[in-house]
């Protein structure tokens, strides 16, 4: 598999799912209980924020790459990525 830049969305989602899985696994054998009405909204908000942050980071990365390409090829005009 190819190594790629750190993927924030995957990281946050992975942590979230592993954490919740552990919590429910532990909860099945102990008295520890998650408040069910907050689990799903929380997951959606966290994933959404992670996606937002991730796309802003990716955008900045793209802009940086574009800037360096533009510098290398002085007057090669490229359209901005959208």
């Amino acid at each position: 598999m190819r190594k790629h830049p750190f993927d924030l969305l995957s990281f946050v989602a992975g942590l979230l799912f592993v954490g919740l899985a552990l919590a429910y696994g532990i909860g099945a054998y102990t008295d520890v209980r998650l408040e069910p009405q907050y689990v799903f909204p929380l997951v959606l908000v966290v994933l959404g924020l992670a996606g937002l942050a991730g796309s802003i980071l990716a955008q900045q990365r793209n802009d940086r790459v574009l800037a360096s390409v533009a510098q290398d090829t002085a007057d090669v005009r490229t359209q901005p990525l959208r």
Partner: protein
Amino acid sequence: MTQNTGPVPGASYAPPPTTPIEPRPPLRRVRTDRVLAGVAGGVARWLGIDPVIVRVVLVILAIFGGSGLLLYVLGWLFIPEEGDPSSEAEKLIERGRQPGSTTRTVLIVGGVVLGVIVLVNLLSFGPMNGVWGFGGGSSLLLLLIVGGLVLWLANRPASGTAAWTPPSVPSAPSASAPTDSTTPTAADHDAVALTSTTAADTVTAADAAGFAYGGYGGYPGYAAPVPTPTPPSAPRQRSYLGLATMSLALVTMGTLGALSMAGVANIPAVVVLSAGVGVLGLGLLVGTIVGRARWLIALALPLLMVTVLVALLPSNLRLGNGIGERVWTPTTPAAAAGPFRLGIGDAELDLTDVVFPAGSTATYPVSASVDVGELRVIAPEGVTVLVTATNGLGEITVEGLPRTSGQDRQIITELPGIVPESAPTIDLIVDVAVGNLEVSRA
């Protein structure tokens, strides 16, 4: 290569091959056959169905929960009109934006804000506040997600080909270098050779750097190389991380489920499900550094939803006790001990045929359980019966007591009845996770 092989700017520039026209028309709001803004007509044409169907669906959705209205407004905002390159939303943003990169950010921020508003609405007005997100509001949420996906998929191929065009021909650098070197003096042969090499090198270097330049003029039969413009990002390698993770999650859940069903280990359903969620999460964590597996989120979310729901079920719910109807009629105290178990279905435990040793005053334990369904226990006359009835969700009806319903209750009582001085005692322990429980004398 001689000096006159310098690139002729734009001489034989061949545009990159255009992608074949898709059979499906682009998703556009129609100008004709419209009622309001042409959203329904456009969607219907895109889907290849009658606009009336789309309108009826929208109206029904508008009446039940109002999501039809919201979808229509979203469609009006984000679907461009026929012959118009940009949608209303894009035009709105276009007016106020400064650098090109903000468009996307604004769109995403707007989407998140909209999502939060919808979430808050669902949280406060959802018909099932206890199990948030699974009530009638979930259809709205689902529609939003599906609608967003459809819009994204519909607009993706069009913007993919149109948003990026090859850079314009860089005439200045590659043309100027050979021009400079094409001024040799006749007396300077060595220098000519030297400069021509430099010129060739310049061209080659420029070519290798990915310049789309004007082709080699003057060579008959020599096809001008198709310009290979630098793509916006490196082509994405297909990653099998997601597939591997999904398979691993299935194997994990299947194995745990089988172990539970076979009675090898008593594994609650919530553990089986959360193990799947955990494996998917681990795959995502791997995808943080190598491979691509973001779509696992779409898989883990519904699985998590089921996990949350199953975790709400009473903790005494176990899988693997069978499905169907049962009538248990033990005849000896040993056989009556049980434990009698049924997973899903109705069961009856008839203790009237049990023959106790004459003159016995011993206590005989009897236990029976049904996970989902109904359990009726018929106790014999002339025997002391101590009842311990546990019910996760449903009704408990014990003779001599008023019928009660609720969640996670336990009733400990003694059945009424005429019992002789020297009579055996039945210690009856009954348990129904979801369903009704009834204990009575014959």
